[in-house]
C-alpha cells in the first residue's frame, strides 16, 4: 500500500488530524487521535486500521496518488507570456542618492549587485513598453512600475515613459507606480505624478531617530527631515492624492521597534496613510543578523492581538500593521482548507508565479527578469532580453522549481501549502536550485505550515470571525 500522508496535532482543547489528500483538518476524538499517532509512529500498519478504512470510504486518507511534480500552467506559460503580461517594472537607474545600511544593493547580500551609475536610456525604455504592450493583448489592466536605486533620479525618463504609454494605450486601464525614498518628491515632480495619478510608496522607518540610523544621504546626513518636509508639502497641496500614499517601513535589527510603532500611531501626518511593515530580507545575507529580545517581545505581543482579532475579541483597528497582513493570510489558509480540494497525480508547490507574466522586470540594459526581488547576477534568473525575446525554457525551469526535489515533494506533508519560489533560495555558490539549497527553505516551509495548521486548530476552538471556520 502506498503511504498515506497525514499529520497529527494536539491542542489543549482537542485532537486533530491533517489529511494531505483532501487538504482537510479533522477534529477527532482522543482514541482516534491515538490510533493515527500509532500509525504515524509505525506501531500500527495503516492497512490494519479499521479507522483508516472508515475514513477512506468518505474519501479521506487515500494513499498517495501524486506521481509527478509539475506546475499546472507549464504548458500554458507560452500563451500567457505572449498575451497576458500584466506588470512592467522598469529599472530606470541603479544609482541612489541614499546609502541605506540594509539596502539590497549595499553589498551586504551575496549574489546581488551594488549601486552603480548605470541608467536606462529612452530607447530601451520605449522598447520595453512596446514589448510589454505587444504581449498583453488579453490583459484588461496594465501596470508600469519604476524601480531603482532611487527611480526619481531619472524623473526625465519616467516622464517620457508615462507620456508615451498614455499616448499609445487607448482601451486598457493603465496605472503607474513606484517606491521612492521620498527625498526628491517635490515641486514639478509631485505635480506631474499627481497629474498622471502615479501611485507612490515612500520608504520611511519611523521617527527621525529610528529612520536616520540607516537611511542616510551619501554625505552621512539623515534623510528624515527632507522626506517629512516633502510629505507635509504634498499633503497641503494635494490632500486627496496624499491619502493614497503608502508608507513602507523596513523592520531591521538597528531600530527600536516600539519607537517606530509609537511614532506611526501618534504622528498626525500618518493618520490617513497606509503603513506597510516589511522585514529586512535575511536570505542571502553575507553576515547573520540578530534581533534583540525587545523586538521579539513586541512582535509576540502584537501577534497575540492578531489572534484575539481572529477570534472576534479585538477590533482590527487595534491590530498593528506589523502583523495585520496575518488576517488576510489566515483567511486564505482557511479558505484553502475549506475547499477540501483533492490532491492530484500532478502537483506543484504554489509559490512560483508565472515568471514574466505577473511581473516583467527590465534591467537598465534591457535584460529581463521575473521580478525585482531576484538576483540580477545569476544567469538562472535571466529570462531573456528585449532584443532576443523571452526564453520559454528558462521560464519553465523557474516555474518548476519543485522539480529539483521531486521525490521529496511527492511525499511532503506541506505540498498543498508550500509557497517556495526560486527567488527565496540561498544559492551560495550554486548557479541554480539544487536539492541542497532548496532543502533549507523546505524545512522552514514545513515548520511554518505546521505552525499555521496548529494555529487554525486552536482558533477553531473559539468563536471565529465568519470567514474563519473549519470542517469538523
Amino acid at each position, binding site marked *: 500500500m502506498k503511504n498515506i500522508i497525514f499529520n497529527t496535532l494536539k491542542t489543549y482543547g482537542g485532537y486533530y488530524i491533517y489529511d494531505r489528500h483532501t487538504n482537510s483538518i479533522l477534529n477527532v476524538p482522543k482514541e482516534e487521535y491515538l490510533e493515527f499517532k500509532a500509525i504515524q509512529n509505525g506501531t500500527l500498519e495503516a492497512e490494519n486500521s479499521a479507522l483508516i478504512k472508515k475514513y477512506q470510504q468518505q474519501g479521506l486518507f487515500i494513499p498517495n496518488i501524486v506521481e509527478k511534480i509539475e506546475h499546472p500552467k507549464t504548458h500554458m506559460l*507560452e*500563451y500567457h507570456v505572449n498575451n497576458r503580461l500584466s506588470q512592467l517594472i522598469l529599472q530606470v537607474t541603479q544609482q541612489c542618492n541614499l546609502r541605506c545600511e540594509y539596502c539590497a544593493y549595499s553589498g551586504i547580500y551575496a549574489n546581488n549587485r551594488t549601486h552603480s551609475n548605470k541608467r536606462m536610456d529612452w530607447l530601451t525604455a520605449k522598447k520595453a513598453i512596446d514589448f510589454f504592450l505587444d504581449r498583453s493583448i488579453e490583459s484588461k489592466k496594465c501596470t508600469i512600475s519604476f524601480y531603482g536605486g532611487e527611480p526619481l533620479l531619472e524623473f526625465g525618463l519616467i516622464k517620457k515613459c508615462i507620456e508615451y504609454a498614455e499616448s499609445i494605450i487607448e*482601451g486598457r486601464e493603465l496605472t503607474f507606480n513606484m517606491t521612492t525614498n521620498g527625498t526628491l518628491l517635490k515641486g514639478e515632480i509631485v505635480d506631474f505624478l499627481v497629474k498622471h495619478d502615479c501611485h507612490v510608496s515612500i520608504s520611511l522607518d519611523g521617527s527621525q531617530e529610528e529612520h536616520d540610523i540607516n537611511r542616510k544621504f551619501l554625505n552621512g546626513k539623515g534623510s528624515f527631515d527632507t522626506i517629512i518636509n516633502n510629505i507635509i508639502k504634498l499633503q497641503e497641496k494635494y490632500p486627496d492624492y496624499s491619502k493614497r500614499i503608502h508608507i513602507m517601513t523596513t523592520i531591521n535589527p538597528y531600530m527600536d521597534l516600539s519607537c517606530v510603532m509609537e511614532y506611526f500611531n501618534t504622528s498626525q501626518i500618518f493618520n490617513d496613510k497606509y503603513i506597510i511593515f516589511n522585514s529586512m530580507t535575511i536570505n542571502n545575507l553575507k553576515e547573520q543578523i540578530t534581533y534583540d529580545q525587545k523586538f521579539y517581545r513586541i512582535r509576540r505581543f502584537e501577534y497575540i492581538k492578531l489572534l484575539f482579532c481572529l477570534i472576534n475579541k479585538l477590533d482590527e483597528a487595534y491590530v498593528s500593521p506589523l502583523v495585520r497582513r496575518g488576517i488576510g493570510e489566515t483567511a*486564505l489558509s482557511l479558505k484553502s482548507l475549506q475547499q477540501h480540494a483533492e490532491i492530484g497525480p500532478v502537483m506543484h508547490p504554489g509559490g512560483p508565479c508565472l515568471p514574466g507574466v505577473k511581473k516583467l522586470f527590465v534591467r537598465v540594459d534591457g535584460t529581463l527578469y521575473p521580478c525585482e526581488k531576484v538576483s540580477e547576477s545569476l544567469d538562472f534568473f535571466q529570462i531573456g532580453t528585449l532584443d532576443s525575446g523571452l526564453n520559454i525554457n528558462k521560464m519553465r525551469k523557474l516555474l518548476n522549481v519543485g522539480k529539483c526535489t521531486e521525490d521529496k515533494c511527492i511525499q511532503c506533508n506541506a505540498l498543498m501549502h508550500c509557497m517556495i519560489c526560486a527567488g527565496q533560495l540561498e544559492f551560495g555558490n550554486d548557479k541554480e536550485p539544487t536539492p541542497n539549497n532548496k532543502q533549507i527553505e523546505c524545512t522552514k516551509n514545513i515548520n511554518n505550515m505546521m505552525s499555521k495548521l496548529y494555529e487554525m486548530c486552536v482558533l477553531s476552538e473559539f468563536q471565529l470571525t465568519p470567514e474563519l471556520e473549519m470542517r469538523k
Partner: protein
Amino acid sequence: MKHIIFFPYHPDIYTIIKELRTSQTFCVDGLISFNEDRIITNQINLKLRSKLIPDEDLIKSCDTIVLLDNYRDYRLDKYYSIITQANEYNKEIVVSPSIAKKLNIRKICGQYRIMNLQPQTVIDKLKDNKLYHTNIPIIVVLGQGEFCGKFETELLLKHVFINNKYKTALISSNALGAILGDYTLPDFLFDDNISFVDKVFLFNHFIFNLSVAENPDVIIIGIPEGIAPFNAGYHNHFGLYASVIGNALYIDAGVMCVYFTPDLNENALQNINNICINKFNAPINAISISKIMNEQLEPQDNSYVFNFLDDNYLTQYYPNTNNYDYPVIDLFNTNNAKDQLNIFLNLLSGNLNSI
C-alpha cells in the same frame, strides 16, 4: 455589395471573416481596433487588403461599421470616437446588442441599428398559454459558457445541412449571425420583466410560427451562455436559457460545446449528457471541443479568463478526437469537423416519416 469594417478586435472576427469570404452581400474591408491591438489588427488587415491604410481612410471607404462587443472591458472612449467619425462620413453603424447597452449612443446621435435578425413571424406578446408541437427536427447547440465554440459549431452544422440540400433555419446564439443572414435570438428571452413561464410559451410560439411560415427541413438553435454555473462568480444565469428552450421545444438532437482540454474525461462526458437530458430535455449526440480554454488565474479568485489558443499550441495539444468512443467534433480541423457532424444527417435521415 456592402463594404463593412469592424471595431474593435474580437476573437469572433476570424470566424466572421471566413464566413463572409464567399458572401455576395458583404465584403469585409478591414478591422480597426485600439492601439494596443496593433499587431493583430495589422495581421488581419494585411490578409484582407495586402496593405495597411489609415483608420480614417478605412472608415471613409466603407459602407457600414460594425461595433463588436467589448470583451476585455476596455474604456469606451474609442467607441465614441469611431461613432463620431462614422456619422461625419455618413456611414451606417451596426451595433452588437451587448455593447449597445453600455454605450450612450443617443448622446452621439446619428443613425444606427442593433445587430439582430428576426423572422417576420417574430412575436413580442403572448397570445395564449399553449405549447405547440413543431414537426420540424430541432437541433440545439449548447455550451459550458461564453467563448466555448458554439458560434463556430452552429455555423459548421448549418453548412453540413445546406451542403446536403436541406433547407436550414439557424437561430444563432451570437448576434454576429445576423450579418451572415442567420436569425438571432428574440429579445424577450433576455427581458428580465418577463417570467420564466412566459418565456417558455413565447419561445415555443416563436419557433412554431417560424416552422409554419418558412417550413425548413431542420432548425438549429444556439443556446446562449452555459448550462450551469462554474462557481459563485460565474453563474451563467444558472442555465436559464437552456431551461427555457428545453421546456419550450421537443429537442431531437444536440451538440455540447466544451472548453479546450487536452484530454476529455469520458465519465465527465456521460455526466454532461445526463444533465442535458434530465434538466433540459436535450439529448447530446456529440461533443465539440473549443479552441478556447477557460482558466482560473489565481486559485483564490472566483473569476476566469479565456485563453484564445493559437495554432502553435493547438497543433501540440489539441486532442485526437478519434480516440473517444463518444462522437467528438474537431474544431481545430474544420474539414474533420464537417465530416464528424454528418452524424446529425444520419440521425435525421433515419427518422420515420409518420402521420
